[in-house]
């Protein structure tokens, strides 16, 4: 694939949109990381969720420029973190309800795998959006990167798609990265169609 060397300057709006998606995905990754770090402790997760809900409910935090106000990178991260903490909590509660011994100080292997999987996918998506911003939204570069991920996944013959076992961590990362790149390209194309400066296209 031949890549056009010209990289146009992205509008601030597009840059902000890519940052926003990267931060939200990063927040999701951090939420599952938090759940793993605390070994799926339900009480700790509930306390953290409550803390964030109170934080966002505080009207003084809505002041423009405040790091917890809408439109700030910290808030975008929290917007990814909070719902994902709830997702993690739901997964843990379901797994505990189905486990025979109901032990709460350890993570059943399948639950740990599922939490790791979500964390890896989200981290990879965050990395993909960051990459898209750093290459100035150059769609050709993003398509080339997507092809690399597709090639890796097609050659990973021993990897059964959908298997969340941690031994397929690299394949999970590529899945997440590919998904993030595709969404980044879609975001760029959408902005381009709405009258944003057209990012460079790829000559096949």
């Amino acid at each position, binding site marked *: 694939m031949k890549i056009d060397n010209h990289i146009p300057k992205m509008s601030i709006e597009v840059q*902000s949109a890519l940052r926003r998606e*990267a931060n939200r995905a990063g927040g999701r990754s951090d939420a599952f990381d938090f759940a793993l770090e605390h070994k799926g402790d339900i009480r700790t997760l509930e306390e953290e969720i409550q803390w964030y809900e109170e934080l966002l409910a505080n009207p003084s935090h809505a002041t423009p*420029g405040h*790091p917890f106000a809408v*439109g*700030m*990178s*910290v808030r975008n991260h*929290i917007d990814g973190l909070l719902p994902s903490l709830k997702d993690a909590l739901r997964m843990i509660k379901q797994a505990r309800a189905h486990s025979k011994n109901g032990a709460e100080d350890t993570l059943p292997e399948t639950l740990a795998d599922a939490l790791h999987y979500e964390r890896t996918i989200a981290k990879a998506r965050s990395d993909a959006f960051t990459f898209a911003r750093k290459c100035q939204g150059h769609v050709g570069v993003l398509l080339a990167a997507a092809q690399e991920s597709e090639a890796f996944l097609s050659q990973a013959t021993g990897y059964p798609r959908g298997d969340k076992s941690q031994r397929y961590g690299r394949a999970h990362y590529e899945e997440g990265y590919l998904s993030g790149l595709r969404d980044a390209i879609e975001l760029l194309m959408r902005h381009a169609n709405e009258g944003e400066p057209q990012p460079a296209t790829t000559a096949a």
Partner: protein
Amino acid sequence: MRLATLKFSTTLLLIATGLLFFVWSPSRTNMLQLAQDAIAQHHSDTGGQTASPNPSNRGADQEERVRQMLAHEYNQSYTTEKAINDLLGFKGKTADFLGYNSEARQWLIAESKGTNLNHAFDQLENTLLKLLDKYPNASVELRIYVNERTFKLLQSADGMAGWTIDGVGYLRAYNEAVGSVTDVLINGIKIITLQAL
């Protein structure tokens, strides 16, 4: 005859030596025991002096080191939540350290955190707002101490969890309304971020 006398003397000497060794041997055992104890003690001291802080308690270790370091710099220091609550007349989460240097007429509010800057910011904000309620004209410095890993992430171009720091260490975040990274302020005061030792 002389030969017989010599043999007898040699035998006596050997018996005496044997008796002497028998008498001395308990004290020798004691000496060995003392030496072994000393070696064990030496290893214990060495371990105690050089051991890393308990990994499961690294955050608390860092917090305590920061408190102790700052307490030397401020002639009035409040290092527990209760002490800060009592001084400022409220109940709730506070920063780890509140200090006042009467010569410089300068307050310091400091928080030590491993990774979670959202909690650190909230605790600094709570404490500052209550301090300003009580002393509206107070001159205040705000600091966050983080571990080495977090500090490096904050210095990196991508930052961490939406936060970043500038070359000096001032805390910043990306503001979509402005389209760039801007200083994060609490009541107009910048927050300096430092790496905890």
